[in-house]
């Protein structure tokens, strides 16, 4: 919980807890589902950070010889073995290694893009809420224009025009999702700007910047943090979908969405054949996005229904 009281640093803020309108002290208690989900997310973040260092092979390494050093006739879609724990993909590359390398690409791109969306969205959203008037009107209409596109369509059109590169993907997802962050930040900002404590701060003669940094942002922080999780899921799905369509991360860089796409033909061999090659990265995406969703669900269930209404 963020500190919502306005005290100068030398006053012990705990004296305010006795006041009848002191903010309730809530400690985040996760259900067991929530705890498992946190573990899953932590696991993938760990893999994203150290994956390339601990992976058995390089992401672009083709397995050509078996462990004894004899050449393999057909290294594509090999079944799991001690040499390749999850088998190999359509070109004979180790799937486990590619998933570990791909974690960095998929999670890294999505995370940076979501951060970008938040920096743009919150700045513009709070600015619109605080300034009001035509600033608000102009920013809101711009956002309406972005939101009148299906996200994937905007992605397709921009990629058709500019081609696909990692910075392009980050910028694209960042701008698209900034529009929805803007709406939430603006709604929260407008709610907060009419609260008594903001009026009190104004009456005290506090400057605009003080009000934004000490009143608006801390009070909007918790709902925005929860929303960050949901937005991250959307961005992961968006980037993976583009990669899956062959329009996102380009080879030889491994990425979960493009791994599913490239190994699709392995599906036809069934579970006893190469089905693991597209299945494993798909499961990686699903486990990550479901886990984040469950954590968000857990937190918003505790924070009460008021959150859910703002996060549409």
């Amino acid at each position, binding site marked *: 919980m963020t500190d919502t009281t306005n005290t100068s640093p030398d006053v012990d803020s705990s004296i305010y807890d006795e006041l009848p309108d002191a903010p309730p002290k809530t400690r985040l208690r996760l259900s067991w589902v929530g705890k498992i989900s946190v573990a899953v997310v932590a696991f993938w973040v760990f893999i994203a950070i150290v994956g390339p260092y601990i992976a058995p092979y390089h992401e672009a390494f083709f397995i050509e010889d078996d462990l004894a050093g004899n050449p393999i006739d057909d290294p594509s879609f090999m079944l799991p073995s001690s040499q390749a724990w999850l088998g190999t993909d359509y070109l004979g590359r180790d799937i486990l290694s590619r998933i570990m390398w791909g974690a960095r690409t998929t999670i890294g791109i999505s995370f940076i893009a979501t951060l970008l969306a938040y920096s743009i969205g919150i700045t513009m959203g709070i600015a619109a809420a605080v300034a009001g008037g035509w600033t608000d009107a102009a920013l809101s209409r711009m956002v309406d*224009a972005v939101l009148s596109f299906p996200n994937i369509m905007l992605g*397709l*059109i921009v990629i*058709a025009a500019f081609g696909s590169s990692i910075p392009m993907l980050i910028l694209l997802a960042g701008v698209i999702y900034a529009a929805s962050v803007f709406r939430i930040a603006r709604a929260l900002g407008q709610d907060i700007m009419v609260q008594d404590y903001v009026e009190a701060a104004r009456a005290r003669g506090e400057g605009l910047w003080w009000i934004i940094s000490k009143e608006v942002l801390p009070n909007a922080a918790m709902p925005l943090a929860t929303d960050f999780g949901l937005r991250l899921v959307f961005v992961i799905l968006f980037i993976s979908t583009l990669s899956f369509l062959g329009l996102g991360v380009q080879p030889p860089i491994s990425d979960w969405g493009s791994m599913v796409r490239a190994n699709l033909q392995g599906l036809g061999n069934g579970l006893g054949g190469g089905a693991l090659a597209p299945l494993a990265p798909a499961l990686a995406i699903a486990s990550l996005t*479901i886990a984040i969703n469950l954590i968000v*669900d857990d937190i918003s269930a505790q924070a009460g229904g008021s959150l859910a209404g703002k996060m549409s």
Partner: protein
Amino acid sequence: MWQMVLRRILIGLVLIWVVSVFIFILTQVLPGDAAQIRLGQQATPESLAALRKELGLDRSLPVQYFSWIGNLLIGNLGISAAGGATIESLIGNRIGNTVFMTAIVTLISVPLSVVLGLIAAMFPGRLIDRVITSGTLGLIAVPDFFVAIFLILFLAVQLGWVPAVSYLSGSEGFWKSVYVLALPIGTLVIVVSAQMIRMTRAGILNVMGSPYIEMAILKGVPRKRIILRHALLNAIGPIVNVIALNLAYLVSGVVVIETIFAYPGLAKLMVDGVQTRDIPLVQACGMIFCTTYVVLILIADIASIVSNPRLRHPK
């Protein structure tokens, strides 16, 4: 009320116009224009200039925009940069396929979602509700292609019940087509329904919190009767809204599903166009999809205005 509806329609028209400007600008800012792409790197400046003149690329941007949008309105969609066929001919035989598939998906998913959403709302917190809500939450959180590859793996590859690739020769009868399309239709129904079920449930539970329902509970009306007679009728507006919104989500869903099943629809055509950077084709398909999207959202808004009795008699 009709004033509000009229206002919404006007806003919708403005949005479609904004979308067209966006699409045009986004696809025109890149350095290599259509002439460059068609002639390739070795083109001489003279032949480039000649082709630019022929394609009208030497005119100012606003003039180009108006000629593009004007041609679009009379159904003249331009010429594909790859191959040089007219875009109408490329789109013509694809658009029917996409409409056919989405129509069937709509026919199945709408009643399915309303019924499942109702059941979940009838027994909140009970086992069946928890199965439905957690199942749909899981489905919303995963990519569309995840659902698709699971269905392909189990229904087509392991069990062999349905074909994995949705190729239509055009001569199949209706039921044969549905059989060939079983997997893409199934995937889309699952993906779209998950969202609709949750929103239907939320809509009904929302109505259940209102005072007149409390009154009905207090006078002893059974819960099922309250939901079917009182809550459902008042939730119709929100539900129609949800349905239109989700059909708009279908627009994104078809892009993935047509690609994964190699279904010869409009979305597959557009994705191929993006890959070959066939800008005129992408512009045309983008306009069709985005206009459909804006229109569906417009219908959703109008439905919620019309179904709200408070707006029907303005003070």
